[in-house]
């Protein structure tokens, strides 16, 4: 059914599966069949680590089986609808209806219409309330599900937090129910939902109801079934070392983003940047043992044949094993050297890929490149970067986020101008020519002076570059700030679209004459829709469905994004952007996600919000006394870090100044004072 249409669509290789690492699923009545879905293209979805981890974990269980699906591009979807071909798994091309669970990974609000489209293409009613006993159970997890209310109507269940343990528990909870259903025993869909609600970390929207006051304002979201807990707590895997997944990272047959080996070195972040939802909701910090990282890198490279590995986390330079691990990879990539290699060896020897078919020495993974996608701004970081990116010296990215020191105190990104300039100086001096700087506009308390501070920083960075190169170039990437649930900024009224556009305009004018500075910005219209979804409530389901029915899929893709569809849909529902996105929330106001918990105390977040407005920064709680945010204390777990002292570096004022950082990775020490 499917194969005959594949020659007719663009990039058919994304629909065929067969990647190295793909599982061979064995379906059966005793197994809950999961169809793991990413609501965007294969190219974006395939690298998603969360989905890959669940894929493996579920397939290792005797009571579960898992396959994958991604959103078919518009050309294929059109043909599928014309020929009656339903949503299928890429692994075996099984139709979605052959599965029990359709589970989405949600990491971006603009994919919500694709989620609806995929449920429909799967052959299930898009609204959970309309589904019958044999229809798919539709679930979702991922960062967006910390406020699942806008999509609650489409979902049978929602998972909060780390999926490693909970996916197994969900399978166990559903296995008996499925067996009974298959055997024809009298079970209901409600039975499945109550079983799911019994799993910690699982939220079943149908078992709750929003309560509103006379004016229609939300008072609370309350359980309406005894099986549903008052407060749904997120799940946290205490020890990442117990979950060395993915063991068999998928190696795609066709082009995808982040096409490299990805090894997660830790989860969580305690730097406390106030705009960053990921940092808040993934606390506490859980490091993977350095030894395990080395093994995962060595085995992953050998197995996949990649020549690039990314050490992923929210801030990889904070990983206490970073020197060891990076050093080991770098040395493994160097050609075998004569006897005096001894001092430089260390853990590197374990990474030797060994002799292969080509005889002794031939199998050394030559020119392995390492990337650290999240870098802190300091000389230490640049030192590491210098070691590892020798082979492919492309651009280096820093994220000061705010244009002035005042702004960065508000957002708690405590990087001084000098930290940045020092890092930039040492990067240029070590041969980089291109820098990328990330900033947000529309942050709380932001003035035009703060916005224009971005231009000043960029200009100064180019100036520094000119001392080292003829034509240094700096790309300034500007995103509009979207307030997110479970952050101190959740109460802040987002800047209007017009205001964001004005700020981008200010920057454009200010940088017009600056050769060497390139300004790029995220479309403020898309930012506005993200803002509506980010803190929205259940009324938005009708908006999302409306946009989807009017053809609004792939809204993440600028060529498909259509603001007017959203504005029209809002109007039809009697909703306004002003109320949903632009309005400041008050302290006593009920928030749509108050019945869910990311572990953070609401009063901690409120205090942090007050501190932000008072321009008071907080130091990293990993190295200083606890602020009792709730993330550790509430769950009886702690940060898992190998090192009791902060890594060197000045970005949080916790280490020595950049100039004094001794960097000794590999053979070529960075000259002291380079920063």
């Amino acid at each position: 059914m499917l194969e005959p249409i594949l020659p007719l669509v663009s990039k058919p290789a994304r629909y065929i599966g067969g990647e190295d690492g793909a599982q061979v699923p064995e379906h059966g009545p005793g197994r809950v069949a999961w169809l793991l879905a990413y609501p965007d293209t294969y190219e974006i979805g395939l690298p998603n680590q969360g989905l890959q981890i669940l894929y493996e974990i579920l397939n290792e269980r005797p009571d579960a089986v898992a396959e994958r699906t991604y959103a078919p591009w518009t050309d294929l979807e059109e043909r599928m609808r014309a020929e009656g071909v339903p949503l299928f798994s890429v692994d075996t091309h099984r139709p979605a209806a052959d599965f029990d669970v359709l589970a989405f990974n949600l990491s971006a609000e603009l994919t919500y219409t694709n989620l609806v489209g995929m449920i429909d293409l799967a052959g299930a009613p898009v609204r959970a309330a309309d589904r019958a006993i044999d229809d798919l159970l539709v679930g979702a997890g991922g960062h967006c599900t910390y406020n699942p209310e806008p999509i609650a109507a489409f979902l049978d269940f929602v998972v909060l937090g780390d999926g490693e343990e909970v996916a197994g528990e969900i399978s166990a909870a559903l296995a008996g129910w499925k067996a009974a259903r298959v055997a024809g025993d009298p079970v209901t869909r409600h039975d499945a939902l109550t079983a799911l609600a019994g799993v910690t970390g699982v939220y079943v929207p149908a078992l709750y109801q929003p309560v509103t006051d006379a004016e229609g304002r939300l008072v609370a979201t309350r359980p309406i079934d005894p099986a549903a807990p008052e407060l749904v707590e997120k799940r946290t895997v205490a020890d990442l070392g117990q979950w060395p997944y993915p063991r068999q990272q998928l190696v795609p047959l066709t082009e995808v983003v982040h096409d490299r080996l990805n090894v997660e070195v830790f989860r969580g972040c305690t730097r406390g940047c106030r705009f960053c939802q990921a940092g808040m909701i993934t606390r506490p910090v859980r490091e993977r043992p350095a030894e395990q990282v080395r093994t995962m890198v060595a085995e992953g490279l050998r197995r996949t044949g990649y020549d690039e590995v990314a050490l992923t986390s929210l801030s990889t330079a904070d990983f206490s094993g970073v020197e060891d691990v990076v050093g080991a990879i770098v040395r493994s990539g160097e050609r075998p050297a004569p006897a005096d290699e001894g001092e430089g060896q260390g853990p590197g020897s374990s990474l030797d890929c060994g002799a292969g078919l080509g005889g002794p020495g031939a199998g050394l993974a030559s020119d392995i490149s390492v990337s650290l996608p999240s870098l802190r701004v300091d000389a230490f970081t640049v030192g590491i970067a210098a070691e590892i990116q020798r082979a492919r010296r492309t651009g280096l990215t820093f994220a000061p986020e705010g244009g002035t020191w005042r702004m960065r105190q508000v957002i708690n990104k405590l990087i001084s101008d000098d930290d940045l300039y020092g890092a930039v100086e040492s990067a240029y001096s070590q041969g980089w020519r291109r820098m990328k700087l990330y900033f947000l506009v529309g942050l709380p308390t932001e003035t035009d002076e703060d916005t224009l501070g971005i231009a000043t920083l960029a200009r100064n960075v180019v100036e520094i570059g000119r001392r080292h190169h003829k034509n240094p170039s700096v790309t300034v990437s500007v995103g509009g700030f979207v307030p997110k649930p479970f952050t101190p900024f959740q109460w802040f009224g987002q800047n209007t679209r017009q205001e964001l556009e004005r700020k981008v305009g200010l920057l454009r004018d200010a940088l017009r004459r600056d050769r060497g500075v390139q300004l790029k910005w995220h479309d403020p219209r898309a930012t506005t829709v993200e803002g509506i979804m980010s803190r929205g409530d259940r009324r938005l389901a009708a908006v999302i469905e409306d946009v989807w029915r009017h053809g609004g899929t792939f809204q993440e893709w600028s060529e498909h994004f259509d603001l007017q569809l959203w504005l029209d849909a809002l109007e039809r529902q009697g909703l306004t952007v002003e109320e949903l996105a632009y309005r400041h929330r008050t302290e006593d106001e009920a928030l749509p996600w108050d019945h869910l918990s990311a572990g953070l105390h609401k009063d901690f977040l409120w205090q942090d919000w007050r501190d932000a407005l008072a321009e008071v920064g907080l130091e990293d709680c990993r190295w200083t006394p606890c602020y009792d945010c709730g993330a550790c204390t509430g769950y009886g777990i702690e940060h898992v870090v190998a090192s009791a002292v902060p890594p060197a570096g000045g970005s949080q004022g916790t280490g020595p100044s950049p100039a004094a950082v001794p960097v000794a990775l590999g053979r070529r020490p960075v000259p002291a004072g380079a920063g």
Partner: protein
Amino acid sequence: MRLRVRFSKLGKVRFTSHRDVARIWERALRRASLPVARTEGFSPRPKLHFGLALSTGYESLAEYLDVDLVEGTIVDLAVLPEALTAALPGGLAATAVATVPPGTPSLQHAVTSSRWEVEVHDLDLATVTARTEALLAAPELVTTRQRKGKDVSDDVRPHLLHLQPQAHPAEGVLLVAELGAQNRGLRPSELVALLGDGAREGRVRRTHQFTEHDGTRCEPLPAPHALERAS
């Protein structure tokens, strides 16, 4: 040292593009721990040389690839096809490997023609046979094709080297064709179009590629073909 590899591409993996296959080979060679020579310079690339591109969606029993190995490498050719196949994703298999002497012309230039099996749907054997005979009898077959965005007329008759319809076991007709490859050659889809109204292209499989050497036609690798694998 230069290795020449013959490989097959069968089944769902036929939907990968020429570029995809190049990337897959780069990784497979690293997985097999073969020390591939790299270009000098700012961003070194492994020295792999592919032959004529196979259109996305077509199968093949006879794709070729030249690999330059690091100087001084010793390889056991006997085990190489199996080792490479193990490092490749399902549907791709190395079927023969040999070393080629320095100065051997590149595959791009050397290959003069390919043999194809083309499934033709929606026409019966008698019709296809009649039309095939007409094509072969024509002194000239002028086709209009796009080149650099412009329509160009070519006589493709010289590229029609062999054409033999036979009954297909499953559906329609199987056309065995040998088509010239140089100077833009003739593509299977163009051949099906030449068959005229109602002809629809089904699966297409390249079975051989040929080079000419001192006036004799031979294959880029002397080794015998492995048995056809199930797709």
